[in-house]
């Protein structure tokens, strides 16, 4: 009938079956393209292809002044926008040796943690969706809305805030902020039980994730997998603990650590981090000191010539900002060490030999945000 019916008979072992997952694929959470080599259902290897939304943020930074850079960092890992802003602000403040008011530090820490919870909520719902449980998506988003409402009331926007400026904040927090945050924590402590009932305890989810996609501690360090994904493998990489910034040295919190490094462990890291973040917020929310919401900064910020590096703990791992200044008002070179970029590099390693469904689950548990990779 047709030539295609006469299938070429080859040794099955030699047969390479390439499949493109992405750029237009529901499970890549963005425009990432993975070329997956399959053998039946089993993934033999995969190659990531990036750059579909590369915007050249590092190049753009070279012509922007330091306050202007803030709005670009929002757009890297848009789910932890505040934390990205925080990195650049800290870099500038440390370079200029500006003492930031205590109030600012408290507010920044609280908002970072809120942002982390919001980010993990979105991760949870998209992870649930990757596993095939669509209902998770709506529960996660429903609760994330509460945080976004708090953000909107205080800073006027829901996703990309540009709220921090070098030296302080754009404006003071809204008078309702503290009450709303406390109400949210009370609300979310109740709702997070639903998450556990619906997905964490579910036997299908556990069977699919336990023992799948194992990343050893050595590999996690070697691949630079940080954040919850790295800590699941036992890599103590929490910047908040090891290189404290903000008021993290004053609060009592645990660095959530795992041992097995499988998909389920990575899942549990984030679930536990949400509890830990709520604990941090509770310790701080009533103790915000009075004071100015910004330090006095010069109208034109010029960093002294030299090199600066600032690390913060974004919700997906360690975010590093490397800046070379030649004394001008714009940086000479700005490099962002984004957590997802390094986390992605481990994907090929840990997904060899798993099934397609596991690949999707592993991708969900690594929680990559593509704009952060592409920058």
């Amino acid at each position, binding site marked *: 009938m047709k030539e*295609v019916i006469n*299938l*070429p*008979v*080859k040794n*099955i072992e030699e*047969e*390479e*079956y*390439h*499949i*493109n*997952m*992405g*750029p*237009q*694929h529901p499970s890549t959470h963005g425009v990432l*393209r993975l070329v997956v080599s399959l*053998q*039946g*259902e*089993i993934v033999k290897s995969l190659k990531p292809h990036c750059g579909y939304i590369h915007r050249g943020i590092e190049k753009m930074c070279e012509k922007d002044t330091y306050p202007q850079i803030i709005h670009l960092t929002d757009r890297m890992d848009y789910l932890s926008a505040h934390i990205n802003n925080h990195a650049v602000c800290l870099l500038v403040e440390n370079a200029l040796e500006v003492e930031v008011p205590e109030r600012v530090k408290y507010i920044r820490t609280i908002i970072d943690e809120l942002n982390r919870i919001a980010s993990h909520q979105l991760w949870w719902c998209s992870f649930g969706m990757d596993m095939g449980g669509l209902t998770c998506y709506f529960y996660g988003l429903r609760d994330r809305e509460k945080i976004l409402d708090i953000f909107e009331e205080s800073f006027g926007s829901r996703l990309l805030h540009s709220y921090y400026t070098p030296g302080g904040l754009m404006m003071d927090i809204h008078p309702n902020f503290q009450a709303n945050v406390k109400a949210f924590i009370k609300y979310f402590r109740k709702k997070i039980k639903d998450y556990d009932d619906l997905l964490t305890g579910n036997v299908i989810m556990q069977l699919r994730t336990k023992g799948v996609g194992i990343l050893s501690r050595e590999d996690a360090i070697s691949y630079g997998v940080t954040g919850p994904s790295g800590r699941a493998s036992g890599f103590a990489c929490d910047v908040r603990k090891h290189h404290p910034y903000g008021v993290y040295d004053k609060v009592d919190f645990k660095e959530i650590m795992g041992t097995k490094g499988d998909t389920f462990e990575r899942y549990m890291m984030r679930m536990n981090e949400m509890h830990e973040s709520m604990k941090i917020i509770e310790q701080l929310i009533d103790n915000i000191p009075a004071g100015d919401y910004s330090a006095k900064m010069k109208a034109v910020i010029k960093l002294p010539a030299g090199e600066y590096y600032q690390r913060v703990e974004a919700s997906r791992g360690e975010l590093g900002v490397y800046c070379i200044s030649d004394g001008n008002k714009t940086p000479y070179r700005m490099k962002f060490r984004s957590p997802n970029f390094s986390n992605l590099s481990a994907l090929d390693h840990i997904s060899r030999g798993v099934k397609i469904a596991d690949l999707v689950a592993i991708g969900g548990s690594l929680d990559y945000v593509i704009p952060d990779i592409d920058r």
Partner: protein
Amino acid sequence: MSAESLILFFIVGAFLVGFAIVFAHFAAPNSTNPQKAEPYECGIPTEGLTWLQFNVGYYLFAIIFLVFDVESVFIFPWAVVMKEMGMTAFIEIVIFFFVLGLGLLYAWKKGALKWE
């Protein structure tokens, strides 16, 4: 109605699909675009052959399935008469299931019930 009228259901079903497809063929817009006829693979042209020998992990299951499916043909008539025949039928099916269960247990222990 008799069993021959099954053909009616066959025709009605075929008519529904056929009619709708023919209707859509005339009513729907038609634009020819070579890109549209490409198989969907996330927006990237597909590499290599699609139809090639595929290593599916369930051919052993398929064999066990065949065994059990044939056995179930015996079980159905037995089930109908079980009530009337009583003890004889029960003892027979116990023996039958014992053999069947041994087969399943053997496959299980041999690892045939594992993917790959």
